[in-house]
């Protein structure tokens, strides 16, 4: 059976989000995968050109509409559904964008959604984490009808470049709702690498004690070219903004190096770092659960250790 896959691109209007390239790799695990990526945008050309270069993509569709200036699930879902008929699988990334959108798409298609796909075993069989990653569940869809899925991006490498897929304009006749309106987005602009795709991540917890304390981490991160993450406790306390949160309710990441500083290692935090290649933990409590998963552990006071590491680099 040929798998015909539709992937919904994630982008900010000009730049393609790396999550899309990871969805492409996931889709390539389906037999005889024929991959179409759709770009919903006000003006899609720039993003479509980036998608066309991803190896494995067979075709890029653009859905241009002024209402697509900001990604709103209630607006995008009916457009996606309108072009979904020929496909066996409809995939999006398991990011806040994809999770918001894909379940709405699944509902309109009356199709089951497999959330957080971490491995594909067959066109109908998928593996996914449940219970905050404390169990892995294999599920089987009936094979009748479509399967909708969100792709756990930390489980897949980004597809390589070098492709040159054709780009086609798609036209759909659907009424778009006006009941949902974009007001604003506040995103801290940072020159640091993106947390979700960075090779190195330095993360801080409640122990940093203040937003001031986090500066210690920014300084170390900049020396290492690393992104900065945070535990929920650090975000709740206002030491770090919410987009830095790592874990079950934050970002799920898979860096080469993850350094957890003053983080106890609650299961909800560990969910976010299970796929990190090397985990380093710095904590003054030798019994802290983070040491159970750390490849390299250092017991001690972070306020001494972190500046010392920086001096040694």
């Amino acid at each position: 059976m040929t798998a015909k896959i539709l992937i919904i691109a994630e982008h900010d209007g000009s730049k393609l989000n790396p999550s899309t390239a990871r969805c492409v790799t996931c889709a390539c695990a389906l037999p005889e995968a024929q991959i179409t990526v759709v770009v919903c945008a006000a003006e899609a050309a720039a993003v479509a050109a980036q998608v066309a270069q991803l190896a494995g993509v067979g075709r890029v569709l653009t859905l241009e509409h002024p209402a697509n200036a900001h990604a709103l699930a209630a607006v995008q879902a009916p457009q996606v559904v309108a072009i979904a008929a020929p496909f066996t699988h409809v995939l999006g990334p398991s990011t806040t964008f994809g999770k918001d959108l894909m379940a709405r798409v699944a509902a309109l298609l009356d199709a089951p959604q497999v959330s957080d796909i971490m491995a594909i075993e067959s066109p109908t069989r998928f593996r996914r984490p449940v219970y905050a990653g404390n169990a892995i569940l294999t599920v089987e869809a009936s094979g009748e009808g479509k399967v909708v899925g969100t792709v756990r991006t930390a489980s897949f490498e980004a597809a390589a470049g070098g492709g040159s897929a054709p780009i086609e304009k798609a036209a759909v006749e659907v009424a778009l709702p006006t009941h949902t309106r974009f007001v604003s987005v506040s995103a801290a602009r940072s020159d640091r690498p993106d947390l979700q795709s960075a090779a190195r991540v330095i993360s801080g917890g409640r122990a940093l004690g203040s937003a001031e304390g986090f500066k210690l981490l920014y300084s170390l991160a900049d020396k290492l070219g690393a992104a900065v993450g945070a535990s929920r406790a650090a975000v709740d306390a206002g030491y770090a903004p919410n987009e830095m949160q790592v874990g079950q309710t934050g970002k799920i990441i898979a860096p080469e190096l993850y350094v957890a500083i003053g983080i106890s290692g609650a299961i909800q935090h560990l969910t976010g770092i299970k796929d990190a290649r090397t985990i380093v933990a710095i904590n003054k409590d030798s019994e802290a659960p983070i040491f159970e998963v750390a490849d390299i552990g250092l017991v001690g006071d972070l306020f001494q250790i972190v500046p010392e590491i920086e001096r040694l680099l």
Partner: protein
Amino acid sequence: MKRILVGIKRVVDYNVRIRVKPDGSGVVTDGVKMSINPFDEIALEEALRIKERGGAEEVVVATIGPAETQQQLRTALAMGADRALHVQADGIVEPLVAARALLKLVEREQPLLVILGKQAIDDDNGQTGQVLAALWNRPQATYASKLELKDGTARVTREVDAGLETLEVDLPAVITTDLRLNEPRYVKLPDIMKAKKKPLETLTLSALGVQQRQQLKVVRFEPPPQRQKGIKVRDAAELVDALKKKGLL
């Protein structure tokens, strides 16, 4: 009547260490502490605060699940919900089934707002709110960390990967909660006594005309792969050396 409908799910408490059953059919739940899904507790808290501010007159809490779920409904009533609806259903309730049942309750109760948790911490599906909004053909605002009601609209700040996004949605709408929306209140003993007298209505999926179907069959549960035990270093210098040896610096 201005009404808010809150959906709750009974789940294994978030503090419990999950163990997969040896036969792979599920996780161990015998003798395990069960609670209201933490995100749903936040949903209920938000509804109660809206009511306390005068933004709603009644908070109705609903669940779809087995008989034992009534314990969590009683807790929700003790927190301050006015009424509870229990839709009896056994086995795995998939998001599409839960949303169809909630839609039936929505048609009956005509709420101005439905607030649900953004995900249940057992199956981690994170779908029900969006599915309900789609079937109802109404707005959704997921991952809410702030919610303001004004003149038939809701202004919702959402925690998204990029930072904080604000949407305006017409009511009625479906909101799903993130952790920073509020901190749920503690239940006081007198409220537990009072909750026993509050109305709890039991319904069934079939009476609502909703089919209990499972589109995704469970093949097996497995424990996650364990990480290899690591090493301990004594100081910053040893740490830097160890990282260099691994080629990470």
